[in-house]
Every structure is written in C-alpha cells, then in structure tokens.
C-alpha cells in the first residue's frame, strides 16, 4: 500500500505539471483582463491539434513543433481578443465576456470538426509510451518533460512580468486600468498582447495534453474547463505560480484518493477547493497578494 501511495504522489506531481501548463494561460488572462476565458479548454485542444498536424504531416517532433505552434497560438489569441473581447464595453463587460468566450469555443469546435472530423487522434513519439525507472518507480518521460516545461514556462512568465518593461505595463494594468492609462500605458495593446501570450502558453499545454490523454477529438475541451477553473481559483486568480502549486496539490490529492475509490477522487478534487476557499477566499496565492507584489 505504501508503494501505491508513493506512486500516486509521484503521478500527481508530474500530472500536476501537465495541468499547470494548461491553466497558466487562463490565470494570466484573468489577472490582466478580468475575463474568465471559458474557451480555454477548446484552446488546449486547438494546441493539441496543431501539434498533431505538424507531427503527422511534416513529421516534426512534438517539442520542436512548439516553435511553430506557440507563435501560431499567439496570433490566434490576439485575433480572438480583437474580434470578441475588445469590442465589449461597460459594466456588463465581464459577464458578456463569458458569452463571447463561449462563442469562441463553439466556433473553434466547429472548425476543428470541419477540418479533422469527430474521430479521436493521439500524438505519437517514442517518449510517450516509455519511462525511466527511478527508485523502483517507472516515471513516464512525457510527464517528466511536461513537468520541466511547466516549471520553465512559469519561470519565463515571471521573468516577463517582473523583469521587463512590458511586464511592468501588465502589472500596472492588473492593479488599475485607469491609472495605467493616465501614465501613458496603451491598455488595449497590453490586453491584446496578454491575451495572445495566455493563448500561446496554452499551445504547450495542448501538446502535453494530447500526448498524455488516451486520445482527443474536437469535443474534448469540455471535460477540461471545470478542472482548469478549479485549479486557477485554488491557486489564486491571476497567480501563475499559484496555478502550478494548485495543479500539483489537486492532482496529487486526486491520485492518492483514487487508490481507494476513483469515483470519490473527483469529488475530493472539488471538495478540496471548497475547503481551501472557506479559510482563504482569495485562494493559495490570491490576486490581492499577486497585485501587491
């Protein structure tokens, strides 16, 4: 039993990295734009399909393919912002953005059905099915690489936010949009670029999701969104490091409970969210704390 628990903890930590990759874009977009991008699930799937197309048609390695898919997803993000989010104005902006993002999800799903059809596809590479033995545990390479990628991306985003001029503009916009405008920051430009970056990061999440799921089709995004929302709420809306910490915590918890009851594991996943929010309503690394940094 102890061995199973250790294995579940290792699985949870590595699996948490995969979810963090999918969730950081969501939390970044919320932090700057006050928008819950409920199209995030389908955008993860779009990222997975881009990797699939490169891998199948051009035989590009999945990780190498990120050099193409990340910029491509950045462009998609900026276009979504310009077409659906930016036109929203007034007090109802946040609630209307939910509908706008839902429309994006429906459109993206339809386009994917049109291009790829309903059949399930999987990403293939030698490191997906193989693993390395460490202290008696088999650690799948894809999860190890995915976790490393998650940590690298979180560090990169921190560097972007806290070590660059653009990052200062983003943080100023996060704290007070009106004040940011008054000091000459082009808030619309910052918002569009941030949305683009949030979606671009999702390309990496999509690739690792595609490689670790049993298969995906255009409908697969709907299973993801509730988990991703739970993770960013627990981590603290707007907190990038919080998303990684929360993803690792929740997936590990779920993995351990799964040993006794897979059905209860999902319930515990969401129960943990409720319990943490009861004592800490802003999540583990809440937005007020993030904005105060």
């Amino acid at each position, binding site marked *: 039993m102890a061995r199973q628990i250790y294995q579940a903890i290792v699985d949870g930590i590595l699996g948490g990295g995969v979810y963090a990759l999918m969730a950081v874009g969501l939390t970044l977009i919320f932090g700057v734009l006050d928008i819950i991008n409920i199209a995030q699930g389908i955008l993860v799937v779009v990222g997975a399909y881009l990797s699939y197309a490169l891998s199948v048609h051009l035989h590009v390695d999945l990780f190498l393919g990120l050099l193409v898919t990340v910029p491509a997803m950045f462009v998609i993000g900026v276009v979504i912002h310009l077409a659906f989010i930016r036109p929203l104005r007034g007090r109802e902006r946040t609630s209307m953005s939910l509908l706008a993002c839902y429309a994006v999800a429906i459109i993206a799903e339809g386009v994917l059905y049109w291009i790829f059809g309903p059949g399930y596809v999987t990403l293939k590479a030698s490191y997906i099915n193989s*693993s390395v033995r460490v202290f008696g545990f*088999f650690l*799948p390479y894809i999860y190890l690489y995915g976790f490393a990628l998650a940590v690298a991306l979180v560090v990169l985003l921190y560097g972007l936010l806290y070590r660059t001029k653009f990052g200062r503009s983003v943080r100023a916009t996060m704290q007070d949009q009106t004040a940011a405008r008054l000091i000459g920051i082009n808030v619309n430009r910052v918002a569009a670029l941030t949305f683009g970056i949030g979606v671009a990061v999702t390309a990496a999440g999509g690739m690792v999701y595609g490689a670790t799921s*049993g298969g995906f089709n255009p*409908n697969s995004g709907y299973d993801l969104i509730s988990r991703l929302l739970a993770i960013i709420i627990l981590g603290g809306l707007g907190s990038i490091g919080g998303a990684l910490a929360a993803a690792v915590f929740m997936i590990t918890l779920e*993995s351990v409970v799964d040993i006794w009851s897979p059905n209860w594991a*999902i319930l515990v996943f969401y129960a943990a969210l409720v319990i943490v929010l009861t004592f800490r309503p802003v999540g583990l690394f809440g937005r007020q704390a993030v904005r105060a940094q």
Partner: protein
Amino acid sequence: MRSNRTRFLSVGVAACAAAALAAGCSSSGGGSSPAGGKGPIVIGTSLSLTGDFSVDGQAFDKGYNLWVSQVNKTGGILGRQVKLDILNDNSSPTQVVTNYQKLITVDRVDLTFGPFSTLLTAPASATAHRYGYAFVEGAGGGGLVFAQKLNNVFDVSLPVVNELDPFTAWLKTLPASQRPSSAAYPMADDPFAMPQVQRTQGILQPLGIKTAYSKVFPEEESAYKAPADDVAASGAQMVVLGSADVPTVSAFMTAFEQQHFNPKIFVAAAGPDQGASFTSAVGTANANGMMVPDAWYPGSLNALSQAMVRDYVAKYGGSPSGINADVAEAYSVGEVVDQAVTHNKSLDNTKLISYLHSGVTLQSVQGPVRFNSLGENLVATAFIFQWQNGKFVQVLPKGAPGSTAIVYPKPHWAS
C-alpha cells in the same frame, strides 16, 4: 356583413375540426402519413453528431444513410422513397428528449429510429412510447433501457450484459493451470460498460480467478491514468476493462506500457471494435492481442453483411477493416423496420409494435433478430474479436464458423 362573418366562422370551425382530427390520428399510433401516400416515408432520429459520442453518432449517421440509399435504390418501402430527418443531440440525454418530441409532434415523422448509446436510448424511448411510436434501435442494449419495461422498444443488437459470455465460456474450458490466476476489473461509470464486466467478474471469481482489482472510475478523459496505474500495480494476469470508447482503452494501454505491465489477456468492452479509429490511436502493432466483444465484424460470413460492406466501401471509401461496428447496428435497425413495414403493408406504429412482438424472426447484417417482451434480441450471437497482426478477426466462440485461433497470451507491447 353578417353572412361574411358566418362564413368566416364556419371555415374556422371546419379548420379547427380538421386540425383536431389530424392531431387525434397522429397521437394514436404514431406517424400520420397513410401507407398509400405518394410522398417519401420520413423517418426521424436523433444522433450524437457532436459531443462525447460523436464518433459513434457519426458512424450511426453513415449506417442509417447507407441503408436509406440502398433501400431507395431498390424502390423504397411500399413503393415510396425513404427520407431521414436527423437532429443532433450533442450526446445529451436531455436534448435527445427534446429532439424526439420535435420529430414526432412538429415534424410528424412516420417512424422513428433510435439514437446512440444506452444513456440516450432510455429517455428517448420513453418519449416515443408516450406518442405510441415503435422504437427500433441498435445501440441501447443496456439494462437501463429494458428496466423501463416499455412495449415499444426493440433492440436489434446483442443485449450488452451477455456480450462477454463467449469469453467466460472459453476460460471455463481451459485447464485451471492455463487460466490466468488473477484478474482486474476497472469499469467506467457507464450503463453499457459496467453490466458486462460485473457479470464476467461474477462468473470468473467462482472459477478460482482471484480478483486483484475491481473499481468503477468516472467516465472522464482526465481520470484514466490513476486507475490504470493502480491496475498495473495489482499485477493482475488478466484485465477486463469496462470501457465505452477508444480514449479509455488507449489511455489504459499507454499507462500499462509506461509501467512495463503486460497482462496475459486484455479484453475491453468497447474501443477495439472501432476499426481504424482504434488502430490509429494505439498503433497497429500495439493493438496485437487486444480483444473485444461484439455481434458483428467486417469479415462476417453473413451474406447481408458482405453486401453492406461492399456498399459501404463504394459509398464512403476506405477499407472493410476500417468500418465501425456501429454502422452495422444502425443498418440493422433499417432492415428490421423495412421487413416489419413491408409485412404489415402499413406504417401504423401500433401494428408494427404488435408484429415485432409476435415472435417473428427477421434478418439483419448482424444476424437473426427475434424480440422478447422487453424488446431484447433473443437470438443475437455474441462473438469475441481480437486484433492479430493488423487484422480484426473473430476468435470466439471457439469452433464457430469464422472463428480463428485465439492468440494467448497477449504479445508484448510493440513500442
């Protein structure tokens, strides 16, 4: 002025009376168009063209449309062409009810065909029952459907609870020393997957095959790795997976390979039967030795099936081995309804229900069809299929026409 009003009133009353009469006719015994009509016979169905069951839903769409094109080529039914009225339910058990209500009360279809999956067939059949429509379906063989005890439901396929019976029968014939000593039974929380795996466990345990793992997991793509790792940790020699689709089986196979776990037997309730969808997901080499129960496969010796396979390839392209078994289930629905309507020389749903309950044996691409009082197909034959070197072959029942030797133990993962 007065005469105008009187005339207007009388026309109105006549129109109301006609409408009431028409509504009365259509609500008792289903479809409204007379058998001797000249327009097309309209058959309504709801399919999961999007959502969780979209792969199966679209295969059903192909099966229904293939049957319609074939039946129209030979003059239709009762001399009338057949037309499908298909609505998309997005794999939702609530939307499927709305769709059948629209098909019956607004579109006034003559007949209804079932949707995909037990989960959707159960509420859909209750709706059709309310309006007196016969509900012939091909993918609602779970207990949830028959537990309603509706007289209008007819499942042309094999009842799912019996799907693995040839597999357990084969294990019984093996000497105890050759049987796997332990088994794992991971099951998706699904009315199709669970009953057959639970029944299998109930049969194999008394044979001395120790249960190393038996748990139900949520049917969610994100939830497969942890139970798969637990099954691998159990070290069971045989895995009977209660799966409902390809991603579930694929996720378990990948996790097993990552954990260097290769059971001697790996049989899944669904997934490996989905032709090219399965092999493209797991790789042809890795599919080697994977088993699945079903009532049909593209290489079936049934003459009706061979004709359907030829017509399918001519219409949709591809190869026979890539044909999803759902296509045959859908096609069988059309065949059974065709025979019933032709025999009755009527589209009257009440007569259709009586005829289908009469104990008559009908023919389909899946084999013979005869219904009991619950609408289960009593004479459907269960088979077990196995992927062997890129070919999907029938292996059980042992000695049955078309069965080839089973590969046991399962070869090691290829990659």
